[in-house]
């Protein structure tokens, strides 16, 4: 659905993005992740035909953004970072204007506007001036204008900034519900948001893509080994010594003390099957095994790891 090849953007001498390449399948929800100033917004603005790239090309549904900007814009629903809206317009009149300019047929306009009003939960404020709405409602109006016309592609730049926890939860649910129905690029630096809503992550730093995959695959690539967490009752020195002898265990360390006798250990192993050997060894030695589970790397760890690696390089 979205194909980006070698996209580069320079603002004078300053690099916005360089050689950004990715593809997004139809119905996929992809998170664009990166620290502030990484190039997320630049990438999104190019995709929405706001300005052309310095080099490279981008296609949406097979249409080149430079050759067919108007046609491309018809396929996109865009929610910019700060949710800019016309504050002196009422919610309904603004959405009607958006419906008109997006080319929705006259007979369908009212119905389509009512549909997005319902989906975004702004029924009770639809006659109020946008300038008088709370940040959360403004954000919903922003999303409503993006959804109007049922565009197959949604580009959402930091969509949950400023929302309260309840609104954030509802918003994420709304995005998740669209999985398979719309292609969504969602930029954020709130990592749990990506874990919860996106199937795939593109991590961008200093204008370059440093990783792109599913969160699980990224975790494995980074860890290069599996981590197992075990809670065992017994003398820690002896436990470490004994477990180290098991074939396939690379490293073991005491993570924290649970109580006087019980400790939590993090074990670096070649594969997850070693958990069986750990359990068997613990029981045979007469120690108490309270818990054993694989430890997966969180998106925060992946992100920090990748960005830090980048800095070190």
């Amino acid at each position, binding site marked *: 659905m979205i194909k980006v090849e070698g996209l580069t953007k320079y*603002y004078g001498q300053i690099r916005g993005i360089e050689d950004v390449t990715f593809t997004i399948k139809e119905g996929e929800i992809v998170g664009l992740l990166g620290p502030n100033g990484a190039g997320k917004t630049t990438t999104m603005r190019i995709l929405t035909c*706001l300005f052309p790239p310095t080099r490279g090309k981008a296609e949406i549904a097979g249409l080149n953004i430079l050759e067919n900007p*108007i046609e491309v814009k018809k396929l996109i629903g865009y929610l910019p970072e700060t949710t800019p809206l016309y504050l002196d317009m009422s919610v309904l009149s603004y959405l009607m204007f958006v419906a*008109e*300019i997006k*080319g929705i047929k006259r007979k369908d306009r009212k119905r389509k506007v009512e549909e997005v009003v319902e989906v975004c939960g702004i029924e009770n404020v639809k006659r109020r001036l946008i300038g008088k709405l709370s940040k959360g409602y403004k954000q919903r109006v922003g999303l409503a204008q993006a959804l109007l016309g049922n565009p197959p592609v949604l580009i959402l730049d930091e969509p949950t900034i400023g929302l309260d926890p309840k609104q954030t939860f509802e918003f994420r649910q709304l995005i998740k519900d669209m999985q398979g129905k719309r292609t969504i690029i969602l930029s954020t630096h709130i990592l749990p948001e990506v874990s919860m809503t996106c199937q795939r992550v593109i991590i961008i730093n200093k204008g370059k893509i440093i990783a792109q995959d599913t969160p699980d695959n990224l975790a494995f690539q980074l860890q290069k080994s599996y981590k197992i967490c075990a809670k065992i009752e017994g003398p820690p020195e002896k436990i470490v010594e004994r477990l180290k002898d098991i074939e396939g265990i690379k490293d073991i360390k005491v993570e924290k003390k649970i109580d006087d006798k019980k400790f939590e250990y993090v074990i670096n192993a070649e594969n997850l099957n070693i958990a069986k050997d750990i359990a068997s060894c613990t029981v045979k030695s007469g120690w108490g095994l309270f818990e054993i589970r694989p430890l997966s790397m969180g998106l925060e760890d992946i992100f920090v790891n990748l960005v830090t690696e980048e800095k070190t390089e």
Partner: protein
Amino acid sequence: MKNIFFLFKKEFKSYFVSPIAYVVISIFLVICGYFFYRDLVYFSILSLQAGYDSSLQSSVNINELILRPLFSNMGFVLIFLVPLLTMRVFSEEKKLGTLELLLSYPVSDIGVIAGKFTASLGVLLIALGITSVFPIILFILGEPETGPIISGYLGLILMGISFLCVGIFFSALTENQIIAATATFGTLLLFWAIGWSSIFVPGTLGKILSEISIFNHFNNFAKGIIVTSDLSFYIISSLIFLYLTNIILQQRAWKS
């Protein structure tokens, strides 16, 4: 084309949602009304005197004594009021960030400029349209010539269009409405007054100053004369400023 109409509709409405259009139109009408009343009183005094002094009769002409100065004064008042109409056109969108969203809709840059330009032109035409009450009063009281009235209004509309284009250009340059209005006002005043100094400058430079003066080109319309060079001046200057506005919009690529 449809999108230009939708944009026009939205922009035109927004002029009347805020007090801008009401204030600008009201002030314009009050000032023009004052000038009309003053000239009408002057004309009636002069025509009374002409009743006693036949040598004055040839100089008592309703078009020359009321309408011509009225058109010139209306043109001058527009220099002050058009910047107030155009200052928000792009500046406000830039400040609020709505321009980014607007340009993400299926509408071209030229379409956006056209929609905004036609909306401000609509407000200007309403203001000028209401002033048609003045010639109507003159038709009730006397027999003014129709030709100079038509040419006067044509001149005002063309000059107003070029003023709007200058204002829209400055509005696209900055997100500060005060700066946009001040720059527009300064530019228009300069090009109005530049013609006055042309008579003191000999040779080609004097001719150039006279040719680029807004006032000199308008003077013919106020007299009832339509000259191709005056028509071209306003049309070309308007197109130049609209073109420059388009360039400024496209430059967002560097400024973002």
